[in-house]
């Protein structure tokens, strides 16, 4: 049996304070150029804009639903930018910022929420699996995928690491805990990235767990780390290290990114029923974008022109998102029967044929639309 040196009850790892001051951390030296930091800022702003547009599109009836990432941009961009091309992501349903880092076009994300598809992109093309709605399930998929990576001998510096995203609520699911254990026992190259936004719909963290979530890993025998999830630099540094450790064959890490869900759970939700606005005001002080902007400005790493350019780019992106959303094609009725099976299937084939005939009967009867 392996014994991991247990339990470093580390404080929250933070490299950038809410005021935009950089703090060195001995274990996580920051190795990043000014251009890269500006890139992160641009990511944060654009990702927030995509989110804002999507919320608006939902209000306008263009989307059935949207799960906003407001407040969680740094956790997603920091970890997303820590990834390499051949890494694989297993997201939950709120990882629009990670999707952005994986070059999934924002409108590809919208199809699911518009109801034109249950998926929307090619996971293998982007190294970004489909959104998973049933809480916790993707943690086992990620672990299995990582076991496949091991079997492929695809570890090492140019190898593949796997990262799985989930929320604080998801830590209560059996599947998440089974995944922790499978990953530990198999020493699988997977990073479990928990965005602890402190709410699972209406349930606050204390309904999910009695002790900080990163400690869960210790019980399974792998390291758990808690980071300031609103600090894109800490997130980047810690995730990079966890991914490297996975690639190098040192097994799983749990990262708890301590952050806050600034908006409603989804556009269907009404958080005024269960939480006070003071909490939100407090977290506004820790906004992930403001602090990075302050840092860039204070250090003279970015000019006003730069900030203005990013805003313009965001405006353009917003417009593009709106247009592409409206242009998303509706599926055809008979698509219901597509891709249920890889191989011909007599049940489906018959139902498709019957239904095609039924639909055609309306046309025969001179009705253009059968409903």
């Amino acid at each position, binding site marked *: 049996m392996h014994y991991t040196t247990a339990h470093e009850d580390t404080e929250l790892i933070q490299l950038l304070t809410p005021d935009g001051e950089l703090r060195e951390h001995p274990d996580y030296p920051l190795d990043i150029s000014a251009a890269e930091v500006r890139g992160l800022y641009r990511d944060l702003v654009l990702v927030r804009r995509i989110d804002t547009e999507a919320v608006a599109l939902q209000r306008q009836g263009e989307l059935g639903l949207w799960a906003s990432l407001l407040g969680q941009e740094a956790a997603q961009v920091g970890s997303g930018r820590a990834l390499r091309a051949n890494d694989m992501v297993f997201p939950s349903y709120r990882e629009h910022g990670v999707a952005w880092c994986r070059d999934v076009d924002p409108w590809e994300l919208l199809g699911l929420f518009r109801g034109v598809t249950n998926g929307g992109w090619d996971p293998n093309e982007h190294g970004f699996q489909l959104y998973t709605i*049933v809480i916790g399930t993707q943690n086992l998929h990620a672990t299995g995928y990582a076991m496949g990576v091991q079997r492929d001998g695809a570890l090492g510096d140019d190898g593949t690491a796997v990262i799985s995203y989930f929320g604080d*609520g998801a830590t209560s699911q059996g599947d998440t805990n089974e995944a922790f254990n499978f990953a530990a026992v198999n020493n699988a190259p997977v990073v479990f990235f928990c965005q602890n936004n402190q709410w699972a719909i209406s349930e606050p963290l204390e309904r999910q767990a009695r002790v900080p979530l990163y400690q869960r890993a210790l019980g399974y025998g792998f390291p758990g780390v808690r980071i300031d999830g609103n600090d894109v630099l800490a997130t980047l540094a810690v995730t990079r290290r966890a991914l490297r450790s996975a690639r190098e064959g040192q097994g799983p890490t749990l990262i708890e990114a301590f952050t806050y869900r600034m908006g409603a759970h989804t556009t269907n939700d009404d958080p005024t029923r269960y939480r006070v606005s003071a909490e939100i005001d407090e977290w506004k002080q820790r906004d992930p974008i403001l602090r990075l902007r302050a840092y860039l400005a204070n250090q003279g790493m970015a000019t006003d022109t730069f900030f203005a350019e990013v805003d313009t780019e965001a405006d353009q992106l917003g417009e593009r998102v709106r247009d592409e959303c409206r242009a998303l094609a509706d599926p055809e009725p008979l698509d219901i029967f597509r891709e249920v099976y890889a191989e011909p299937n007599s049940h489906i084939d018959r139902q498709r044929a019957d239904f095609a005939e039924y639909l055609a009967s309306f046309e025969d009867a001179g009705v253009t639309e059968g409903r």
Partner: protein
Amino acid sequence: MGSKLTLGRAINTGLRQAMEADPKVLVMGEDVGKLGGVFRVTDGLQKDFGADRVIDTPLAESGIVGTAIGLALRGYRPVCEIQFDGFFFPAANQTFSQLAKIRRRSAGVLSVPVVIRIPYGGGIGAVEHHSESPEAYFTHTAGLRVVTAATPEDAYWAIQQAVASDDPVIFLEPKRRYYEKAEVDTDATLSAAPPLDAARVARPGSDATIVAYGPMVKTALQAAEADTERDIEVIDLRSLAPIDYDTVADSVRRTGRLVVVHEAPLTNGVGGEISARVTEECFYHLEAPVMRVCGFDTPYPQSRLEEYYLPDLDRILDGIDRAFAY
């Protein structure tokens, strides 16, 4: 004295009655407390009965049903909420191999009067896993009772009867009908309500019978109304396990034709069972095979396709036409 209640509110009111009547009744699930559930069915209950009786659980369905079983073994009557149909499955093991079997295992010494409430069915434009109709998994599982409700009145009484039942009950709530409103006589007594396992003739008729339940009862009634040529009887099953075959067979013997409607996929759905059983009982009375108008054998589709997936008025009329083509 009656009052107009939505179906969702009727269940809320019924739950409240049950909790007032018996201090052992608990409500538990995700977001059932302050939020009152995503459909507000438990609205206000935590405020009035406290967090010990209306429990916001960790996000773990197996945990919900598993601890409910333990609470029941201690003498409580937990009403669990599963947030959506598609999220029931983590609780399948506790439900199928424990909840359903404990009475039999103990030769009747133990009771586990747990109710599992599940908003189910489609038609609300939702994303994946939020529109499923899993009833056949339950009706195939001995030891469970499976009920649903198509009207506020039924919902109001059925939830109270479910809580009062010493058997585990799967209580399927037709989510797209939560906002349907009707008069409910909340002053009547529970014992006067029709039994939980009795079907209801929702519309009498003589030429053909439609059997429906839950969300499809309204659609079936609309189809019956729309058929101006034939006099269609509509039966609302109400209970799916057991099914009140007396009422169904009685109707079919009169009409000679049966169409069964449900949203769940056709194959091995409740409709297949009804068809088999009614054919056994009414072989010489059937003028045509039992027709089924159901969901297809596919995963529930993305919402832009659900209007095609779900049985609607036209497809039911087509089913009736097919029955008359014999």
